[in-house]
C-alpha cells in the first residue's frame, strides 16, 4: 500500500511537467507559434493577441468557441483554418502551457 501511495504521488509529480511539456510541444506542432510567436509574446500581426500568461480557463474557452464557430468575430477566420488540428484535450494542454508562460 505504501508503495502504491509513493507510486501515485510520484505519478502525480511526474504528470504535471509532462502535461506542460505536452502543451509546449503542441503549441509548435499545431502551428500556434506561426501567428502568436514562439513564446506567445510576439504575434505576427498587431491585431493578434499576446497569449503568454493568459488565464488558462479563458484561453481554453476561446479556442473551443473559435473551433465550434460560437465565436466568429475579429480574426477568427484566420484561426479557424487550423482548429481542426486540435481536440479538447490538446486545447486544454495548450491553454495550461500558455498560462504558465511569462508575459
Amino acid at each position, binding site marked *: 500500500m505504501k508503495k502504491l501511495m509513493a507510486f501515485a504521488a510520484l505519478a502525480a509529480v511526474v504528470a504535471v511537467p509532462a502535461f506542460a511539456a505536452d502543451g509546449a510541444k503542441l503549441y509548435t506542432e499545431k*502551428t500556434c507559434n506561426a501567428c502568436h510567436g514562439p513564446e506567445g509574446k510576439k504575434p505576427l*500581426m498587431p491585431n493578434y493577441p499576446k497569449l503568454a500568461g493568459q488565464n488558462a480557463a479563458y484561453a481554453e474557452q476561446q479556442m473551443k468557441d473559435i473551433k465550434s464557430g460560437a465565436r466568429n468575430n475579429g480574426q477568427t477566420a484566420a*484561426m*479557424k*483554418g487550423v482548429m481542426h*488540428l486540435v481536440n479538447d484535450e490538446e486545447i486544454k494542454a495548450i491553454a495550461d502551457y500558455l498560462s504558465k508562460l511569462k508575459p
Partner: protein
Amino acid sequence: MKKLIIAASLSIFALGIAHAAPPAPKKEGIEGKDYKWNAQEGEKVEALQKKGDKKNGQEAYEVCGACHLPSGAGRPDGTFPQLAGQHTTVLIKQMADIRAGLRDNPTMYPFAATLTDPQELADVAAYIEGLCIPVEHGKYEGADASLQVAKGKDLYEKQCLECHGKNGEGNKEKFYPVIAGQHYKYLLRQMTEIRDGHRRNANPDMVKVIKPYTNEQLVAISAYQASLTMPGSMCKPKAAAPAKKK
C-alpha cells in the same frame, strides 16, 4: 472621368503598399462576368520577371516554414500543401492572388502579406525551388486504396492528363500546378473548392472540366494523383528532415 481613374488607381496603389493587415481585400474572381484568368498584371508580372535571390528567399521563408515546414513538405493531413517541387510560376501566382484578395485564404493571408514586394515573392519562390522533394506525403489510406487509385487513373487519363501531364508534372509556362507529390487531402479539398466555385482564382477551363464530377469521383482522382511520383530532385531517404547536429 480621368480624375476618377486616377483616384481609383491611387487607391489600388495605396492598398498595395500599405502594410497590409487583415482582413484580406476582396477582388472580383471567377464569380464575376469580367473575370480574366491569370491576367498578366500587378506585382505577379513583376515578380515573374525578376531573378529570385535564394539567400533572401530563405530568410523570407522562415514565416512560411512554421506551417509548410522548413522542408516545404506541408502536412500529410492536407491542412497545408507541400510546396517543394512546385513550379515557381505557380507559387508566385498563388501568393500574388492571395495577397490581392483573389484567392480567399484567411489563415495564409497575413503570412503572404508579410512579403514586402515582388522581388521577395520571386526570392521565396526561388528558395522553394531549391528544396528537395520529400519522399513521403499524404496518400489515400482507405482499405480500398488500390481500387480507388485504379478508378482515379481512368478518370485522370481521360481529362486531367492533358493539362497536368502524365506524371502530374503540370506546366510551368502555363501556370498549371504540379500535383504529383501533393497530399491527398489537400488535392481533394482544392478540387472540391474549384468545382464549387470557392476557389475564386481558378481557371475557367478547369472549372468547366471538373463541374460534372461527383464527390466519389474526386476522391478517386485525388487518390490517384497522390500516388504519382514527381519527376525531380527527390530528397535522399532520411535527409527529408535535416537534423541540426550541434
